């Protein structure tokens, strides 16, 4: 009788241990943030830093976060300022977040304006990165005025594959020409919306940085 009882206890113990087997599901989220560094938009980098810090505070262990700059040629790994897949352990995640923040601080202090704005290239790079990261939820945040200016010879007329990706345009500032003719601003937003939705993505715009809570709705 005692043996049977001990065997039963052993079975429960084995069941408890085996139930802890690794089974990583797509529950994590990947965020890729593009920061426009062209022309006068460099002045807005302080806001970008605020958004990055907010995003860092919202991300959990196992999530992936990358920040890349948008300049003349954005379809490149070299444009990635920092990228992290946060550790499973919360303490390590906290350390990674602090390190990430320091890297961004350094970037903001040393950022120089670029002549052109290759947003599409940046988005293509983001899609590639997020697909490789294979996260459950994918978000591309575009911190830009959405005015794309390509250097001569750069081909960016490529359809975007944005299936299952949320694209959020942040701090889309109005240009001087937009003030003269607001239709330009509205058309610019609408073009991007169509481009994203044609690629299967979801499009959102958040201009009020006091409403950042809506970022991860």
């Amino acid at each position, binding site marked *: 009788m005692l043996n049977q009882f001990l065997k039963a206890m052993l079975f429960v113990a084995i069941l408890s241990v085996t139930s*802890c087997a690794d089974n990583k*599901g797509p529950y994590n989220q990947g965020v890729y943030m593009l920061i426009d560094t062209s022309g006068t938009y460099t002045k807005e980098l302080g806001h970008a830093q605020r958004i990055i810090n907010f995003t*860092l505070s919202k991300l959990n262990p*196992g999530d992936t976060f990358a920040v890349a700059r948008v300049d003349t040629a954005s379809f490149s790994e070299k444009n990635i300022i920092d990228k992290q897949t946060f550790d499973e352990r919360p303490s390590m995640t906290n350390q990674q977040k602090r390190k990430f923040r320091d890297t961004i601080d350094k970037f903001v202090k040393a950022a120089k304006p670029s002549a052109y704005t290759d947003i599409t290239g940046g988005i293509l790079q983001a899609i590639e990165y997020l697909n490789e990261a294979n996260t459950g939820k994918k978000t591309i945040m575009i911190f830009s005025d959405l005015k794309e200016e390509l250097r001569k010879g750069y081909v960016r007329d490529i359809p975007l594959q944005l299936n299952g990706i949320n694209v959020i345009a942040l701090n889309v500032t109005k240009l001087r020409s937009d003030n003269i003719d607001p239709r330009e601003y509205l058309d610019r937003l609408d073009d991007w919306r169509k481009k994203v939705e044609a690629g299967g993505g979801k499009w959102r715009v958040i201009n009020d940085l006091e409403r950042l809570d809506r970022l991860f709705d």
Partner: protein
Amino acid sequence: MTFNDLMIVQNPILSSLIWFFLILATLYFARTPAHKSIVAFCRVLQNTFRVSAHSVQKAEQRLLQRNREVLLAQGMEASERIIEREFERIDATVRKDLAEYPSLQRHLSEEITQIDADYKESTEVPPEPPGWVKAVDAIAKIQTKDPMVAHILEDIHNSMIKANTQATEEYRKASHKRHMHLKDMMPHWRKVTQVLGQVDKSVKSLLTRSQTIDRHMDEYEGIVKASDRSVRMLSSSSLTQFFISAFVLTIAVGGALINFNLIARPLAEMVGGTSRIMGVPINSIAALVIILVELAMGLFLMEAMRITRLFPVIGALNDKVRIRLAWTFFSILLFLACIEAGLAFMRELIMQDAAATRAILRGDGNTEVVESSYLWITTAAQMGMGLVLPFALMFVAIPLETFIHSLRTVLGLITIGVLRVLIWLLHLGSSFMRYTASVLVNSYDLIIFAPLWIEKAVLRKTAIDEGDKESRSQSTASI
């Protein structure tokens, strides 16, 4: 099929009328078999309902009987347990108090002997009068006026006074001595009273216990006789126990939830917080497993201590093995409680670290550092809870046992209730079908009321004609 398919002639109204009369005629000619069919169909359904009701009633009776048996068996077991416990208490009282009875008796008899000796010594002995008093009496009767006699008598008188004083003094001394003996008896009396008080207390305790046993024995006899009163009492008691134990279990679930929250987060540091099984984070599963293991250890410990009887295997083990197992379970529980206290401490550290990171990200890192000076209180509280909760959860075994035992009866009662409702519905269905047959037959006749009315009129006319013929033939015969 379209409406045109139903057209017999070109005119739709005429077609409808033809169809109407055709249907009416069919219904009229099929009246008798239709009535029979309706009645038969309804009777079949009525009988089905009736037979079903009867079957369910039988099932309900069986369940009632089984529930009664279960109640009585549980009640019998509970009574046996209580009586057994009372006898154990009596045994303990007898062993503790009455085992010393021989020495108590010896002590008592020694005290009484001592009191007796003291009493004898304190007995008053009247002083003997001097022997020469009679001689004085004789001299005092001498009739003379001799001064010598007076002088002698005077001397005798003085001697008498002196002797009297001496005797009084001696008597006083003897009385004092006797009083001293009586005084010596006081502690012995008190001792005797004390010893008798102890004996009285023990006997009274035994009497009280025996009265309790008598009461339980009466209940037990009632259960053995399977009296209705006992069943009612047990049923009511079972329901009360069910609700009370459910309430206590709810509280325990609350405790388990707090425990879970205490350890789930820090466990992410050990097993990771991103992997999931069936959508549940692995650290939550680990926390749940730890709590369940603690609960299991608590159950086994209570079982090994013979407080509960959920696992007869443990209760049936010999005392030596059982006690060893109890210590093993306790050690595992203590080990897990210490782990929980450690995890609770770690939780606080992780939370502080997370708060500091958040503050850095917000850009106000200094405020967190200042506020953390009193956080040791919450750390200590969390650690204390981590250590105490596993032991508190151990006692879940008691309400759980009651809940499981009473659940059987309660489920039986609920099922009986459901079956009774079902029986009522089946009886209702049976009655409904019985009257439905009449309603359908009458409705059928209502549809074909016109041919029926014609039939009735024709029959009446035929009857009148036949009556006329008969009367005519009778009158012809009389003529």
